[in-house]
C-alpha cells in the first residue's frame, strides 16, 4: 500500500539551479530577478510618491537614495531588469514554439533538440547584456 507522503522536493528542489544545465539556471535567475524587480517596483512607487509632499520631502528622499548603497542597489536593479527582459523574450518565443527545434527521429545519445545552441546562446547573451548594462549604469551613477 503506497504511503501518501508526496516525497516532493519542495522549494529546495524548485530553487536549486544546479544539476540540470544552464536552462535550469536561467529559470532560477528569471524567478529571482522577477521577485527582485517587483520589490523594486513597490519601493520605487513609494519613493517617487514623496514628490507630492513638496521639495523638502523629495530632497530628503533623495538623500536616502542617492547614496553609495542606493547606487549599488540601482546598478543591481539595472542588471536584473536587462536579464529578466532578454531572457523573458527568449522564453516567450520558446513558449510559442520558436527556437525549440523540430520533431524528428531520436538518435543516440538522444540530445534534446529543444536544448539547442540557440537557447544557450540567448541565455549567455542575456547575462552579457545584463553585465554590460550594469557597467554602463554604474558609470552613469558613480561617474556623476
Amino acid at each position, binding site marked *: 500500500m503506497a504511503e501518501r507522503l508526496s516525497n516532493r522536493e519542495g522549494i529546495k528542489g524548485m530553487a536549486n539551479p544546479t544539476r540540470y544545465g544552464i536552462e535550469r539556471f536561467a529559470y532560477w535567475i528569471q*524567478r529571482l530577478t522577477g521577485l527582485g524587480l517587483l520589490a523594486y517596483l513597490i519601493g520605487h512607487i513609494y519613493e517617487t510618491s514623496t*514628490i*507630492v509632499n513638496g521639495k523638502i520631502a523629495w530632497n530628503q528622499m533623495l538623500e536616502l537614495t542617492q547614496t553609495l548603497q542606493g547606487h549599488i542597489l540601482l546598478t543591481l536593479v539595472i542588471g536584473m*531588469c536587462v536579464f529578466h527582459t532578454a531572457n523573458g523574450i527568449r522564453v516567450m518565443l520558446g513558449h510559442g514554439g520558436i527556437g525549440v527545434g523540430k520533431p524528428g527521429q531520436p538518435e543516440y545519445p538522444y540530445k534534446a533538440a529543444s536544448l539547442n545552441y540557440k537557447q544557450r546562446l540567448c541565455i549567455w547573451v542575456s547575462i552579457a547584456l545584463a553585465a554590460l548594462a550594469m557597467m554602463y549604469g554604474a558609470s*552613469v551613477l558613480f561617474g556623476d
Partner: protein
Amino acid sequence: MRESIIMKIHYGTALGAVALVAVHILMRMSQKFSDSLQYQNVIANYHFLPYALMLEVLLVLLSVHGFNGLRVILLELKQGSTYERMINYGSLAAMAALIAYGSRTILMAGMGVS
C-alpha cells in the same frame, strides 16, 4: 478568466513594459543624471501630459505583470481551492492598490498639488 487569457495578458504587458521602461530610462538620460532628479525637473516631467500618461500606462503594465508573476509563483508553492482563491483575489487587490497609489502620485504631481 481562462489561464490562457491571463498568460496572454502577462506576455502583452511584458512587451509593452519593455518599450515604455526604455522610454522612461531614456528620459533620465536626456540630462545629467543628478539634474534629472532635481525637484523642478521631475515636476516638469509630470506636467508634460504625454509623459505622465506614459507613466500611468507603464504603472498599470508593470503592476499587472509583476503581481501576476507573483501569483504564479505562489500558486505553484501551495495548492487548495481556498488558498488559490485567496492568492488570485489578493493579487488583484495588490495590483489595484499599487496602481491606485502610483496614479495618486501622477495625478497630484501633474495637477500641481504638492
